[in-house]
């Protein structure tokens, strides 16, 4: 599979989740701020009008007291019993009188003093040491004094603080809720997409019969229909390509047989030919061998593609198989290095001819691209048999180790050598058909090592 580009880009699911969370936050924050402001205005208005009313009432009481001649201001203030949170202040003849021992004229903001001295009642918010307070000023011109009442409002502060906390918590909850909803919605919306992605991955993996289930959902009918017909078209095309290759190679069998047989006749009568004709015959024979080998590879690949390969399975000993593969390809048996334990059974259930072809292809690859076959190791591994084919070449670069098993990929640096590049792909496909695998790695000490792994046949099945 092709690797997906991974960047800082957010996934669709994350985007939907974030949008929902953002929307939830915006909505809940607007609501919360609005609610807070309205509530705050209302409460403040209420508090102000209450303070004003109380201020005027207390002012008139103080005026009555002061009108009684001779009564000192502090006595008058003593007779007034203001509510617990209020402090009364009187400014007369440049002197300040307070009903509290701690609060003095400092709490009254100078602008209010000026306003009241000018003869107009007023109200301002002030900030004495502990929390907010409303200061109401009322002129009392009859006695040449100004009356101030400082009403501190701790309960208003507390109410507003609580409201702020509740609304913030609400906004936070709404945001989290939005994110969860977004996640859920994204999952619901993306679920069909995931089904499509899964199906596409299976198809890419070779399961061409995979189709999406037909749905009634009007939103999905089109995409599922298009997807399925696309896969139909793809499968048909792949099948047509495979059939074409198979048909072509089948068609080539008869002419090739005639050619090789005729060349065989000419080789038998080589002495009757002039030297130039003999040279031409040798060239022809050599190329026919190559042609035949490529055609055999193609036919074998076609068989594997069609799934008709591996029909003639028999249990054989892996060491025997390697020995015969070396023998039929004219290589010395001393190349076999038997690393199995004494008496170890290395039976594998294979199509002998196919496996032989795969092994000989690996040997030829070592000769053509790896400066010669160095050794073939056979050993048992857990429930499998490992055959390692070592060459003495420069090895295969890490980047090419998978690529070389694709069809028609030649060794890059030595592309002029014979071999159409089918050999290694045939090896890979043959092993896949046998439930095994082939891997290209590094030989200790340099060179390439192709490791073939095949499942061990059931114990006791090895034919004597």
């Amino acid at each position, binding site marked *: 599979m092709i690797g997906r580009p991974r960047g800082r880009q957010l996934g669709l699911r994350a985007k939907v989740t974030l949008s929902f969370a953002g929307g939830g936050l915006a909505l809940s924050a607007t609501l919360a701020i609005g609610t807070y402001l309205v509530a705050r205005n209302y409460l403040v208005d209420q508090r102000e009008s209450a303070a004003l009313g109380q201020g005027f009432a207390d002012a008139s009481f103080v005026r009555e007291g002061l009108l009684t001649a001779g009564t000192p201001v502090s006595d008058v203030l003593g007779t007034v019993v203001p509510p617990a949170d209020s402090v009364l202040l009187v400014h007369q003849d440049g002197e300040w009188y307070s009903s509290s021992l701690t609060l003095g004229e400092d709490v009254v903001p100078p602008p209010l003093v000026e306003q009241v001295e000018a003869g107009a009642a007023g109200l301002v918010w002030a900030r004495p040491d502990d929390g907010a307070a409303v200061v109401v000023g009322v002129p009392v011109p009859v006695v040449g004094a100004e009356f101030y009442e400082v009403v501190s409002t701790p309960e208003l502060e507390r109410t507003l603080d609580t409201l702020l906390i509740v609304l913030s918590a609400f906004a936070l909850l709404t945001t989290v809720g939005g994110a969860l909803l977004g996640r859920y919605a994204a999952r619901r919306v993306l679920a069909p997409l995931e089904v499509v992605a899964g199906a596409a991955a299976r198809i890419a993996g070779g399961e061409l019969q995979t189709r999406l289930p037909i749905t009634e959902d009007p939103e999905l009918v089109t995409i599922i229909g298009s997807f399925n017909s696309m896969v139909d078209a793809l499968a048909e095309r792949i099948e047509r390509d495979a059939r074409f290759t198979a048909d072509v190679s089948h068609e080539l069998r008869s002419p090739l047989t005639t050619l090789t047989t005729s060349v065989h006749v000419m080789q038998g009568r080589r002495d009757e030919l002039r030297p130039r004709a003999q040279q031409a015959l040798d060239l022809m024979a050599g190329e026919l061998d190559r042609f035949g080998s490529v055609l055999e590879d193609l036919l074998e690949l076609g068989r594997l593609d069609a799934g008709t390969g591996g029909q003639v399975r028999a249990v054989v000993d892996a060491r025997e198989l390697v020995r*015969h593969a070396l023998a039929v390809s004219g290589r010395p048996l001393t190349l076999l290095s038997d690393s199995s334990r004494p008496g170890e059974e290395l039976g594998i259930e294979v199509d002998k001819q196919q496996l032989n072809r795969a092994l000989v292809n690996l040997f030829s690859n070592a000769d053509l691209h790896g400066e010669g076959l160095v050794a073939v190791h056979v050993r048992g591994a857990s429930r499998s048999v490992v055959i390692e084919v070592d060459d003495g070449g420069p090895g295969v670069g890490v980047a090419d180790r998978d690529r070389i098993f694709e069809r028609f990929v030649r060794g890059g640096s030595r592309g002029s050598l014979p071999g159409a590049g089918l050999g290694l792909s045939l090896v890979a496909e043959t092993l896949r058909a046998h439930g095994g695998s082939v891997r290209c790695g590094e030989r200790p000490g340099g060179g390439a090592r192709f490791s073939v792994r095949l499942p061990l046949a059931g114990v006791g099945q090895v034919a004597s």
Partner: protein
Amino acid sequence: MGPRLLVVEDDDGIRASLRLALQDEGYDVVDSASAEAGLEVLSQGPVDLMLVDLMLGGMDGFTFIRTVRPGSDAPIIVLSARDDTHDIVAALEAGADDYVTKPFQLKEVTARLRALRRRGGRPAPAPEPAPDVVTIDAEQRLLLDPGAGRVRRADDDVHLTVTEYRLLCELASPPGRVLSRQALLESVWDRGFFGDERIVDVHVRRLRTKIESDASHPRLVVTVRGLGYRLDTR
């Protein structure tokens, strides 16, 4: 003149080149482009060996083999595509002795022909010392007479093909020995390690239908699971 070889092949190129090559190998080649023409050739006189393509226009190779088999015990080698793995078994069951897959090298064909020919050409004058007659099944009065090169049940000859006879001889020398498919492939068909073991299995089945009293419950040529076959004389 060498052994008489009938080639039945509808591809003109293959047929003509096979004739040239096999004549050079010393065979007396008669060829025919169809099964019908091949039957015509056989009606004029016996041949020693046959090379038959399975895919023929008109009558196919299977029918041809089934038609000639009762009257001829000459070895038949079929030419087939290796993909048609069921065809190969079907051809062997019809009575073919061995097969070669296309595209083939001539040396594969000559090797097959030589292997089957070497065992044929009976009944040769008894080599000395004459091998003993083996009683295979006393109940059926079934005897293998290697000296005379035949198998008899009571007073009649049991009709075996050359290869079936060779297989029985191999199993009977001496009886009671387990022979692996690989060993039989080597000794009877001269096939090496890469030979197809199904050839042995099909021939054993064919042999059983001819010598066993109940071929579905063989008591003479028995299968030894995982090892091969054994002849149990009774």
